[in-house]
């Protein structure tokens, strides 16, 4: 029997993905386009938020959207109906987007004519948190009906985001959702995260989100 020897590997498992993600960031740095990765559970309001954001920003920034959907083009059609460049990636059962899939989306857009690209990731609070997409900012939505305990169940997602949008605050009076408890739990995981309560239905809080986005985009370009 041959002798067993040890080889030092010391390599990141996702090194390939991280390399592709860095490539995406560099390409978009050159075209001065900011890439924003939007994540949440299914049904928490990603598409509605994108539509609200497009309305709020369309006179200020040139926008593109990369939509990930398991097997439909519904979301991209809604965005394209607003006159915005939208690319639909069919993930065919994948639970998240990785940097290669995002590269396909970015390559299909005319990035020299865009200031901001929003990625609508697959609806899921687990897997998208583990894969670098090449985005400059990570943003998540938690909606009131999902409950204030989600940071305890999905800590990784809350720990990697720059902004948490708490959507559907128009439901607050009907629920026992505790906003202070949520904020405390989230800040314990990530003290730098910005928490912005919004309602895509009534429009409440959307101005504060749009202002954050404009400032982030301005800071990115300079």
């Amino acid at each position, binding site marked *: 029997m*041959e*002798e*067993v*020897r*040890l*080889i*030092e*590997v*010391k*390599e*990141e*498992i*996702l*090194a*390939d*993905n991280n390399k592709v993600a860095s490539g995406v960031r560099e390409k978009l740095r050159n075209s001065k386009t900011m890439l924003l990765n939007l994540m949440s559970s299914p049904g928490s309001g990603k598409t509605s938020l994108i539509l609200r954001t497009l309305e709020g920003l369309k006179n200020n920034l040139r926008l593109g959207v990369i939509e990930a959907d398991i097997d439909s083009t519904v979301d991209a059609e809604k965005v394209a109906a607003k006159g915005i460049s939208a690319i639909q990636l069919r993930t065919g059962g*994948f*639970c*998240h987007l*990785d940097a290669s899939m995002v590269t396909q989306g970015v390559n299909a857009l005319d990035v020299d004519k865009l200031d901001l690209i929003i990625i609508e990731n697959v609806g*899921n609070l*687990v*897997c998208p948190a*583990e*894969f670098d997409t090449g985005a400059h900012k990570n943003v998540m939505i938690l909606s009131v009906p999902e409950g204030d305990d989600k*940071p*305890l169940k999905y*800590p*990784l997602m809350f*720990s990697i985001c720059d902004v948490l949008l708490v959507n559907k605050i128009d439901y607050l009076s009907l629920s026992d959702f505790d906003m202070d408890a949520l904020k*405390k*739990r989230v*800040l*314990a*995981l*990530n*003290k730098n995260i910005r928490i912005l309560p919004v309602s895509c239905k009534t429009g409440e809080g959307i101005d504060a989100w749009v202002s954050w986005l404009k400032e982030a985009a301005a800071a990115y370009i300079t």
Partner: protein
Amino acid sequence: MHELPVTESILKVVLKHAAANNVSKVVSVKLEVGKLSDLADEWIQRYFDYLSKGTIAEGAKLKIERTPVIMKCGACSKSYEVNVGDMKEVVCPNCGESGGELLSGREYYIKDMEVQ
């Protein structure tokens, strides 16, 4: 949930290092995965067994070490371990401040491998 693409990456790295080191068989692979990751160890091994069929890594045993979640306190800068099952109480045992900066718990790393 995404064990398959992660396992594909593991196999790719393993085969690359095996090829560079004149290996005839991979016996085991030691991984470091942070406790914040939701990867299921059992599924990584099952996918690995499936994907590695017909390669020199076929039959290799994956040894997965879970690295602890360590926070650095935002107030007193002392670091402390957090129990993943009890994320409600992320409080510094030294000064009582809540939360801080995540030092470890997100690792996704291949440490070494035993080969013949």
